[in-house]
């Protein structure tokens, strides 16, 4: 339809051009007496110029030829014949034709350039508007809408498809052929155009969305075959520019989202730790009161009443055990919540073994503790508070599950590229084949046993040691008794410069 109209328009232009030439001839005929022939030539040239300006190249060239013919026929003597008396009129004809055609050509080129410039200006303005709208977009849906509106203006349909974390395009799940094309575009980082995806055979262009850091997805454009853009190539570079703008917007949105997520994580983390510390405070405060008051009671009743004294001591010890349990539960909650902030430092096993034994002294009265550290153990990088908890749990287990009077042994040694601590007892050992299960939460060696505890100790130990990139294993010794070994990576300890001894 469109083409028909265009042909009609062109045909009309030719007729108008012919008409104008004839009218000019008619108008100039009466003036023949007054005007010199050279001026009549000027008149015709003016007409050719005007025709080329208004009606285009074809009619202009035709009018130039026609003008020469009409001039020759009606004005150059002998009139009403194409014959020419004076040879110099051929020069006039040649110049007239040349000037006419040149004018037609130049004018047509100019107006075409003008139209192209106008078109480009329009494109630039549309791109600018697109960029402005994209800058205001705060979600992927908005970006999508802005693009849809932009493309609809020129009759195309464009859709965005983003890559997910696994490198798939979830929004194209059901379009296998398009997915393949999209992956090609992403992999090669260039536009892929194909006409084979639609039934009508229209052109589909797939542009990779290349942001400065990575390809985030594709823009699929179904080019409207009816829409007549000036130059096909122009379209492609326009779409490429659009794809770049979209890619940058999506990149920006990605980082906005990332920032928000980080903020949310931080808030969640703060909330978690504040909940934990307030629970800790609320649980520990009554226990502190209980321990303190029982202790005070025990001290004041020593001489008078042995029974009350013993009860008070028992209350105190039970409250202390309870407090220990609460500590373990809270510690596990903290470790379970995922992000444990390790306060790692280069230090010696000796410190933390010593302090763990000191801390557990009341529970270890029935056992002799033997510490055997390999000579010259290096500095090891660990969180001393957490490792102390591990050792406390291991020592407590050893004390709980081995008969009174049996010694407990703590060994520190190097095994290849690991630094290890073993805690060995002479108790009943672990149930055969179930040592792995013991590291699970709420698993105990003896169910329903009279030995107090809920089965958190080893689970906490494992969580802490694994946070240190270490391993913890439990075995039964050949001569009986349990042996739990934790190993930490040796790493590269910092150097210690020897002391420069000044003479005393």
């Amino acid at each position: 339809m469109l083409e028909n109209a265009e042909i009609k328009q062109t045909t009309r232009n030719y007729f108008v051009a012919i008409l104008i030439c004839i009218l000019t001839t008619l108008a100039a005929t009466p003036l023949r007496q007054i005007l010199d022939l050279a001026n009549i030539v000027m008149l015709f040239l003016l007409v050719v110029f005007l025709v080329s300006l208004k009606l285009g190249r074809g009619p202009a060239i035709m009018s130039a030829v026609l003008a020469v013919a009409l001039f020759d026929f009606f004005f150059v003597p002998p009139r009403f014949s194409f014959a020419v008396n004076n040879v110099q009129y051929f020069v006039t004809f040649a110049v007239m034709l040349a000037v006419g055609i040149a004018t037609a050509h130049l004018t047509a080129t100019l107006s075409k350039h003008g139209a192209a410039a106008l078109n480009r200006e329009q494109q630039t303005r549309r791109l600018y508007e697109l960029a402005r709208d994209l800058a205001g977009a705060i979600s992927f849906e908005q970006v999508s809408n802005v693009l849809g509106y932009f493309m609809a203006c020129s009759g195309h349909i464009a859709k965005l498809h983003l890559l997910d974390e696994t490198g798939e395009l979830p929004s194209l799940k059901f379009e296998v052929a398009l997915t393949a094309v999209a992956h090609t575009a992403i992999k090669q980082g260039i536009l892929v155009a194909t006409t084979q995806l639609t039934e009508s055979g229209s052109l589909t262009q797939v542009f990779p969305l290349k942001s400065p850091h990575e390809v985030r997805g594709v823009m699929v454009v179904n080019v409207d075959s009816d829409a007549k853009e000036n130059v096909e190539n122009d379209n492609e570079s326009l779409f490429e520019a659009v794809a770049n703008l979209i890619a940058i917007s999506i990149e920006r949105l990605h980082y906005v989202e990332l920032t928000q997520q980080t903020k949310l994580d931080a808030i969640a983390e703060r909330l978690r730790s504040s909940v934990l510390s307030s629970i800790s405070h609320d649980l520990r405060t009554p226990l502190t009161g209980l321990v303190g008051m029982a202790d005070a009671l025990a001290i004041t009743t020593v001489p008078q009443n042995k029974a009350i004294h013993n009860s008070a001591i028992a209350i105190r010890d039970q409250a202390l055990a309870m407090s220990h349990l609460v500590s373990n539960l809270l510690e596990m909650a903290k470790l379970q919540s995922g992000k444990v902030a390790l306060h790692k430092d280069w230090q010696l096993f000796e410190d933390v073994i010593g302090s763990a034994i000191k801390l557990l002294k009341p529970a270890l009265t029935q056992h002799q503790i033997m510490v055997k550290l390999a000579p010259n153990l290096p500095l090891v990088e660990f969180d001393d508070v957490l490792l102390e908890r591990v050792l406390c749990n291991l020592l407590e287990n050893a004390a709980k599950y081995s008969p009174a009077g049996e010694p407990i042994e703590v060994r520190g040694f190097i095994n290849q590229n690991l630094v290890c601590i073993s805690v060995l007892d002479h108790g009943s050992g672990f149930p055969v084949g179930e040592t792995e299960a013991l590291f699970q939460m709420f698993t105990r060696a003896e169910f329903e046993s009279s030995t107090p505890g809920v089965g958190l100790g080893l689970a906490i130990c494992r969580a802490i040691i694994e946070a240190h990139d270490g391993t913890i294993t439990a075995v039964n010794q050949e001569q009986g008794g349990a042996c739990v070994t934790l190993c930490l990576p040796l790493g590269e300890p910092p150097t210690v410069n020897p002391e420069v001894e000044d003479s005393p």
Partner: protein
Amino acid sequence: MSSLGNVILIEDDQQIRQFVKAALESAHWKVFEAENGKRGLIEARSRKPDLLVLDLGLPDMDGLEIVKEFRKWSTIPILILSARIEEQQKILALDAGADDYLTKPFGVGELLARVRAVTRRRLQSAEVSPKICFADIEVDFTGHSVTRSGTPIHLTSIEYRLLSALLSNMGKIMSHRRLMQEVWGPNHTESAHYLRIYMSRLRQKLEIDSAQPTHFLTETGIGYRFEL
């Protein structure tokens, strides 16, 4: 026996306050209680205290703020009461000027021992004992010598400085930072692992079993403490 002085006890839990007060009174201190930080600071200004016992987790203000506020105008000993998981808080409180801390829950014996330790220097500030003996070790500050049952033990100068820093703050906790400053000077560049190495050497020379020390004690995550 006359009173040892005034104690301001800032603690929000009534039960804890009650037994701490009873324990301190049994040790001849005059105790003034406060259940929140504001009240505590008012008491502290009006009572001319000789000791401040402070819970770090108060309902109205951060215990750390009270330490800082208090240290602006007073040098009397501050004993912190706190829960185990607040290691960082304890270090901050010690760095802000607190003298020692007690981990909840604690017994009466522990409480009184800490109170004695933090008030000791104040009570005996005039006389710095020239000789200190523990186990079979004798340290003579005037002669710069250390002997075990009469046999001299050689200490390097850093070891000796570390020993005297710990002994002159007997019973009190010394944070890593504070010890580093006392031994290597305020502009020290060494990292904390130096302290751990020298502490280990000191234990090997002076303790019977360096892995189960009875005098040079580790306060995990915070520092060291010397106890007789």
